[in-house]
């Protein structure tokens, strides 16, 4: 360790790995959003007859709730950096509960939509369910990461776990931004 003077603290290797993974995922979402609008350009009726326009209320409220969780995530990272393990666990746990609530509500909404129209009805329905499904899947993955990290943090803080926390916090920020894009795209016929 003494052989190399540490000049500057930069993000860890794990954080970089996560950042690049997120870049690829963001491209995937970009492609799906482009698909949505490409199909929309071609269809005189969007959504087509027989499929209701998306309702604004619940999705926008849920989006707001999800965005707020970025705050406790970032605070958890700050607490962990300051070696306040208890606070970090608490904040992460709090964020996870809200995120889980968001996810449960979204699954409920998704199931409700499936009762009204099916993915096989029209290209509109296909991209609607695929885009939302991809977004929800990323939230679900984030929840699994939260759970794993909480389990790890239960047994103390190491540099490895701190790196994991910074990567997972970044992941959630990114998912939240992607969710804004997805939600606005999905709601665009009603905006």
């Amino acid at each position, binding site marked *: 360790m003494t052989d190399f003077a540490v000049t500057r603290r930069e993000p860890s290797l794990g954080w970089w790995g996560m950042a690049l993974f997120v870049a690829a995922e963001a491209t995937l979402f970009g492609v799906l959003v482009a698909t949505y609008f*490409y199909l*929309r*350009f*071609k*269809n*005189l009726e*969007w959504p087509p007859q027989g499929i209701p326009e998306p309702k604004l209320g619940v999705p926008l409220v849920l989006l707001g709730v999800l965005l707020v969780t970025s705050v406790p995530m970032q605070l958890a990272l700050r607490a962990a950096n300051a070696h306040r393990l208890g606070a970090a666990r608490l904040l992460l746990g709090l964020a996870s509960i809200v995120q889980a609530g968001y996810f449960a509500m979204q699954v409920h909404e998704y199931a409700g939509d499936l009762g009204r129209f099916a993915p096989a009805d029209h290209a509109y329905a296909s991209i609607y369910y695929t885009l939302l499904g991809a977004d929800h899947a990323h939230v679900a993955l984030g929840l699994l990461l939260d759970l794993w990290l909480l389990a790890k943090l239960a047994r103390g803080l190491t540099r490895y776990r701190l790196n994991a926390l910074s990567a997972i916090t970044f992941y959630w920020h990114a998912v939240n931004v992607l969710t804004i894009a997805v939600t606005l795209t999905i709601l665009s016929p009603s905006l």
Partner: protein
Amino acid sequence: MSLRRLAFLQWFGLLAGGLTWFAAFLAGAGTSVALCNPASGRWGIPYDTVQAALLGLGGAVVLLAEAAAVAVFRATRTVAEQDPPPEGRLHFFAIGAMVGNLVFLVIIVLSAVATIVDRACHQA
């Protein structure tokens, strides 16, 4: 010029031109797709205005980036390619940026002019 300022100019010169071209490219091509499709074709897109604006804005940013790259290049004239950072790196990226921005500018101009001149939704 201070090192901080040179560093800013270097990154601006290296990244701004390319990102601007790609954004203008996606916006320009996307608008043309919108213009020529059944649903979006009825939205009354002011096509020539959009393309001229993209040409003007995009071209301006790329020119600024080119100017920044030239400024960094001139400020680091005496530095060799493989010299230690930050001066060596500033010089190195400035050379790359000068070429990159030139190419981006040509693409923006060629496609914007051609899309306005060849304004046909059907090639028959």
